[in-house]
């Protein structure tokens, strides 16, 4: 039960950070999400994102910052198993599911839906 509460609080807080970037710093959504991804990657590299995931569950994995963390995690895992080239080959390992799903279902959406305006 408190897993759900922390997911709500942490997830909501990361969104508030995003809102402050949109309204306070007047960044576009593209700039905001790109920044959060980079921050997620840096925190992932420092080993600080995983503890947040353990603690907040989906509150840390659903926001886009988790994408950055997963990219780094994938690269480092592949480095452990196949050496330096792993930094290139492993990047999309963990995130492959999310990106593939977005492309596949986005395309199906384009087949099925017409823009409403």
């Amino acid at each position: 039960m408190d897993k759900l509460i922390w997911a709500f609080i942490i997830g909501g807080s990361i969104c508030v950070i995003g809102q402050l970037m949109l309204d306070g710093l007047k960044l576009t959504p593209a700039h905001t999400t790109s920044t959060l991804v980079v921050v997620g990657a840096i925190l992932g590299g420092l080993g600080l994102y995983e503890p947040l995931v353990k603690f907040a569950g989906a509150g840390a994995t659903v926001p886009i910052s988790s994408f950055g963390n997963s990219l780094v995690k994938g690269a480092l895992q592949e480095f452990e198993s196949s050496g330096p080239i792993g930094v290139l080959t492993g990047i999309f390992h963990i995130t492959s599911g999310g990106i593939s799903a977005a492309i596949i279902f986005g395309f199906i959406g384009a087949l099925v839906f017409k823009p409403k305006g």
Partner: protein
Amino acid sequence: MSIKKKKELSPTQQEYQQFAQEREPKRPIVLNCIKAFIVGGLICTFGQVLQMFFIKYFHFSKESAGNPAMAVIIIITVILTGFGVFDHIAQFAGAGTVVPITGFANTIASAAIEHRSEGYVLGVGGNMFKLAGPVIVYGVFSAFVVSLVVVSLRALGVM
């Protein structure tokens, strides 16, 4: 948007910009943050419920339950985008829908659906990543740099 180089503007222009800024309606930052917190929090909580559901009934492990949960959220986002509902939710929620994976899925779905009129190859295929591109490019590049730094620091015995 970058910060405008104020010193390149003439005094009249600077004076006018000040004049215009005083008359610009202030964005309701506090209200927007509350809405973002609630909607973003709810989406993440829903993601948590999905993960628990997939662990209990489909025997996914704690690590791998994130994948089907994410796929479900992505499918729901595409459907809401297609029915013309997502943009109304987003106008209300702001970062509450932009920051979670819903934002990423919406950029791909909305661009793909919008450019149908230009054909499936150049229109849909060519424009799908128009708005999602920056996240992928900067995500991958920063992950690459971070990984190199981490690997080097570990080799030097620092990490």
